[in-house]
């Protein structure tokens, strides 16, 4: 591989020819999350640390991990206060785990939770740790509000000033506009476009119909509601602050109700605008955790083993120059991952494709089904393929559950692990699941899990 960027293979080519054989398995014992709340709702007064601690404590109670020294806890938040530089460590110290549990914080936008799972699974496979808890949390309600750049510079300069005249001179630089606080933006720094506006461009490029988006959103709500009704989440969730179900879930929504919503993104497209509040994820608060272990560690504690983390792949796209859509990185990551594992889409029993927007999922599927895209962008002989839609997000996904950015990976991994375990072996092979999470900055992380 050349270090000259121009001669590097395109994003569709395999990243490397050989894979390092894993020394042992990393298994998913189970997970716990708190119900996700709409921003400004039940968790309006809860901090990231509060929510992550609650999610950890529920996991500890479910699996009897009180005073346990976990090999490592890895978690993060996307919207993070500067004071929370040790967010995960503080949450662990406030939890029932041993205070001797080491942690690290990480941040990979919406892929934070999945990347935490992958990182800890790799450490377990390498024998560096025996157990790990991967997690993620986000609060859109308790978001950091920062001072303006002008005020910040004045404060820092004041701190450095030594004499009164110096201080007065510095203060005189202050202008009224500097006093206005800045709320966190969700727009991409290099394009100035919000994630929704970026997706609207992709949606238009792939000609994703409004009805198709609404239908995907409807399925998400129906599937999630059915999962709740069947008790599916009883051992995946611990209520928090009076909330026992995801606050965003609308079990009674319908195509008519969804069709009545006005577009909120891509309005410059006029009549072609298709993305509404109904087929886009809302801002959400919540936290999720996943317990990972070596076989030995799980067996010694008589813990269940639901699934193994088989492999993972990250990808990024050049959305800045418009080469690909902002949220299209998984489109490239999945073919590379499946090729490395010598698998095809037909070998996957369950697809968990994060619903940042209904159109994100549909654009991804459209790209995979497109002959020319397969040839020119993925380096394949034709289309990558299509998936059996009955295998997609079968217990609902982010459109219904909500999407507290860093918590989504943990939600999906624990849900999928339970589904795979329930399906178990068939046709002489374990059940396989694919997780795909797109992220800000044109990134994406995907992973394969396998039933145990």
């Amino acid at each position, binding site marked *: 591989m050349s270090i000259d960027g121009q001669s590097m293979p395109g994003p569709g080519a395999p990243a490397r020819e050989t894979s390092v054989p894993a020394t042992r398995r990393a298994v998913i014992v189970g997970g716990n999350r708190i119900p996700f709340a709409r921003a400004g709702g039940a968790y309006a007064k809860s901090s990231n640390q509060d929510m992550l601690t609650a999610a950890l404590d529920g996991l500890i109670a479910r699996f009897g991990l009180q005073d346990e020294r976990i090999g490592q806890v890895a978690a993060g938040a996307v919207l993070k206060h500067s004071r929370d530089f040790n967010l995960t460590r503080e949450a662990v110290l406030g939890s029932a785990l041993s205070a001797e549990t080491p942690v690290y914080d990480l941040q990979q936008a919406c892929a934070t939770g999945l990347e935490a799972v992958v990182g800890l699974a790799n450490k377990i496979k390498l024998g560096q740790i025996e157990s790990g808890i991967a997690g993620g949390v986000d609060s859109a309600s308790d978001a950091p509000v920062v001072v303006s750049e002008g005020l910040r510079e004045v404060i820092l300069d004041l701190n450095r000033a030594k004499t009164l005249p110096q201080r007065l001179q510095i203060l005189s630089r202050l202008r009224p506009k500097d006093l206005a606080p800045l709320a966190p933006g969700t727009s991409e720094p290099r394009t100035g476009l919000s994630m929704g506006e970026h997706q609207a461009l992709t949606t238009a490029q792939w000609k994703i119909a409004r009805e198709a988006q609404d239908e995907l959103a409807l399925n998400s709500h129906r599937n999630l509601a059915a999962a709740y009704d069947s008790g599916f989440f009883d051992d995946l*969730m611990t*209520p928090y602050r009076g909330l026992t179900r995801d606050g965003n879930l609308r079990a009674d929504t319908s195509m008519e109700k969804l069709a009545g919503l006005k577009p909120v993104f891509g309005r410059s497209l006029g009549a072609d605008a298709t993305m509404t509040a109904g087929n886009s994820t809302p801002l959400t608060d919540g936290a999720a955790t996943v317990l990972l272990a070596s076989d030995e560690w799980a067996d010694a504690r*008589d813990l269940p083993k639901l699934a193994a983390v088989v492999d993972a792949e990250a990808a990024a796209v050049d959305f800045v120059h418009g080469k690909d859509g902002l949220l299209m990185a998984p489109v490239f990551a999945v073919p590379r991952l499946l090729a490395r594992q010598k698998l095809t889409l037909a070998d996957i029993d369950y697809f968990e494709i994060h619903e940042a927007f209904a159109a994100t999922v549909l654009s991804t599927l459209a790209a995979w089904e497109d002959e020319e895209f397969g040839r020119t962008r993925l380096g394949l002989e034709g289309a990558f393929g299509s998936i059996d839609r009955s295998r997609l997000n079968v217990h609902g996904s982010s459109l219904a559950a909500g999407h507290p950015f860093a918590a989504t990976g943990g939600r999906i991994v624990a849900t999928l692990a339970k589904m795979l375990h329930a399906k178990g072996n068939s046709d002489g092979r374990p059940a396989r699941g694919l997780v795909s999470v797109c992220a800000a900055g044109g990134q994406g992380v995907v992973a394969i899990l396998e039933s145990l």
Partner: protein
Amino acid sequence: MTDTYTRLVSDGPGRNIAKKLGLPQPAALRRYEPGQALLTGPVVVQGSTPGADKLAAELLSWDLDVRRHPVPAEKLGAIILVLDEVEHPGDLEKPVLAAAASLRDLRPGGRVITVSRPASEASSPAAAAARQGVDGFLRSLAKELRAGATGNGVLLANGVEPTSPSSLGAIRFFLSGRSSFVDGQFLEVSSAAGALPADTDKPLAGKVAVVTGAARGIGAQIARTLYRDGATLVLVDIPAAGEQLAAVANEVRATALQLDISAADAGQRIIDHAVQRHGKLDIVVHNAGITRDKLLANMDQARWSSVININIAAQLRINEALLASEHFRSSPRIVSVASTSGIAGNRGQTNYAASKGGVMGMVRATAPIVGARGGTINAVAPGFIETEMTARIPFAVREIARRLNSLQQGGLPSDVAETIAFLASDAAGGINGEVLRVCGQNLVGA
């Protein structure tokens, strides 16, 4: 802890004022803490039978000061009246009057315990009269005792010695601070089964116990008490109570199982969880219960059926699964929470009382089935217990309800929990099909 009024009249000027006005003067009860001495002061064992001699000898081995004849003016911890061989009401006179002479020397929080036999098994009308006489005697004496002292009776089935494991277990329970709100009650020992614990502070060591309704109130306290006594716990409550359940589980190092006990497969899921995570299942405490109070004239189907479903139908279904399971065969223990409402009735609680009466009927009928497996099933019937639930009763009604018992105060969740812990222990292995009230000798529904 205790209610404000009890604190107010326990000492200082409040005590004098209450005394002058003739107001109730509830005493602060002697409650068990690990490491605490079984009793302060000597025990007088009255009675001249071989059983009395053997019991006195056994009590000596508990490091108690045992007297066969009271020393004048010596303050006593307890008086035990061994009446195991009374054949005629006239036989009661000598031991009873001997005990009477010592009553004024009983220390605060003292104990009077009768050891006798059930009238139902008497061989003659005279023996039955004597045995039943003990019942009336003890219940009246318990109402005369003051300063937190209690009186309770152990009934030994014919052939069961006063020194049998569960006789000793019951006597030890009644002597201790574990039974502080149990007053004026009889507990029957039906067999010589059972074993005294190696460590009296950890009587449940090595046991795996399930507690339903463990997220709050009495259930949470049962979890704490069983944990303190050495048990490994599985705590069950409905998914919606998961946050509180997790907090209790983390406090007592348990595993939390979010489960609706009225689900058809609840019993199997409880067994599966206990066996997978803890290797076995020894004790099940059916504590989960709800109230949906309404006068019968205003009762609707939802209120009636939900109470019956959760409070008794679920227990029946779970017991069926337990009794069918190969994992519940080694000295299994079931303890159910009934209620004095189910005994005496309570206005506005027809549904609740039906369900709790049902619990007692179920316990008695299940006893032979569990007994055949070497296990036991028993119930506790709490009276007025200070909980979040009773705190919502209007003040005047609450104040009357909590004073209407011999101890003139409400019990604490821990009082219920201590009794359950005892019934779940090996020391209670000879006690089966019993309903023990934890009510401070409530004046109604005796």
